[in-house]
C-alpha cells in the first residue's frame, strides 16, 4: 500500500464483507502528541475471540478464493513502523473496531494520499448497501460527513448519479482543505 487512504479503502472492504450497515471512518491528528489515529468501526457480523487473534496473521483469511489475508497485517506493520500501535476489538453480532496509531511526523509514515478519491469510491458505489460516517479532526478544525443525511436529501435520486458524484467530490475536497489535513 502506497498511502493511508488505500489502507482505509482496504480495511473498509472487510466491513462491507461483514455486511455492515453503518461504517465509521475517523481520522484524528494530534500534533502535540505527534499522533495520527485512524479508526474504522462497523456494525457487521463481528468476529469471535479466536478469529480476532488470528486476524492479523497474514496466512489467515476467511476467504476461499486465496490463502493469504494481508490487509490488516500490512496496516499493522505500517502503524508499528512509525512507533505507533494497532488494535482490533470485535464482538460477534455487534461489529468490529480497528484502531491504528501512527507517528504523525515520523519519516516512515505513509502519506495520506487521495483521501477524497477513496471516500468518493466508497460513498458513491452504486450497489453499496452501507452508510458511512466520516470524521476528520485536525488542529484547525473538524469535518463530519454522514451519508444518511446525503441520502435523505437526495430522496429518490441515486448517490452514484454523475452530477451528484461530482458535487460530493467537491464538497469533500473543499471541507478537507478548510481544515488543513496533514498530507
Amino acid at each position, binding site marked *: 500500500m502506497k498511502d493511508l487512504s488505500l489502507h482505509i479503502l*482496504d480495511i473498509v*472492504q472487510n466491513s462491507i464483507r461483514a455486511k455492515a450497515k453503518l461504517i465509521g471512518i475517523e481520522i484524528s491528528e494530534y500534533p502535540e502528541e505527534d499522533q495520527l489515529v485512524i479508526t474504522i468501526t462497523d456494525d457487521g457480523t463481528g468476529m469471535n475471540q479466536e478469529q480476532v487473534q488470528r486476524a492479523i496473521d497474514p496466512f489467515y483469511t476467511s476467504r476461499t478464493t*486465496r490463502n493469504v489475508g494481508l490487509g490488516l497485517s500490512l496496516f499493522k506493520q505500517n502503524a508499528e513502523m512509525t512507533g505507533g500501535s494497532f488494535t482490533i476489538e470485535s464482538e460477534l453480532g455487534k461489529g468490529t473496531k480497528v484502531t491504528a496509531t501512527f507517528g504523525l511526523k515520523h519519516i516512515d509514515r505513509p502519506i495520506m494520499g487521495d483521501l477524497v*478519491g477513496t471516500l468518493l469510491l466508497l460513498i458513491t458505489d452504486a450497489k453499496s448497501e452501507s452508510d458511512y460516517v466520516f470524521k476528520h479532526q485536525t488542529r484547525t478544525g473538524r469535518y463530519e460527513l454522514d451519508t444518511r*443525511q446525503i441520502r435523505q436529501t*437526495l430522496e429518490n*435520486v441515486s448517490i452514484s448519479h454523475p*452530477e451528484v458524484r461530482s458535487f460530493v467530490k467537491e464538497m469533500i475536497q473543499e471541507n478537507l482543505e478548510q481544515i488543513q489535513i496533514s498530507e
Partner: protein
Amino acid sequence: MNKIKTLADLKKLQSEVQSKIKLREKGDIPESLVQIKVSMATCGIASGAKETMSFFIDELDHQGIDALVTQTGCMGYCYAEPTIELTLPGKEPIVYGFVNKTKALEIIEKHIKLNELVDGIIPVNYSSIDN
C-alpha cells in the same frame, strides 16, 4: 473565496437532477447497462484498482455511456490484478486481468463500443459446447 458546498446546495442539485432523471429511466435496470465489477481487495488495491475504477467511472461518464461500475471482492486472480469483470447487456461476463488505465481505455474503445474482444482475457467463465 467560494462558499463551501453544503447539504442545502445538494438539495438544489437534487431537484435539478430529479427533473432530468426521467429521461434516462433505464438507469434503474442493471441488465440493460454495461456492468463493470472491479476487484477491490488488498491485492487489487495494492496494484492500482482504485485508479482503474475511478478511470472507468470518469471516462464512461465523459463519453456518455450508461454504465454501472461497482466494487467486488477478490476473484482469486491476485497475480493479474487489477482485474475487472465486464458484462455487456445480454452477454456472458468476461474477466480481464492487468487492467491499468491504458488497458481500460482499450476495453472501452474496442470491447464496450465495438464489441470486439481485447487481449488479456482470463478464461474463467469458459464452458464447453456440451454444457
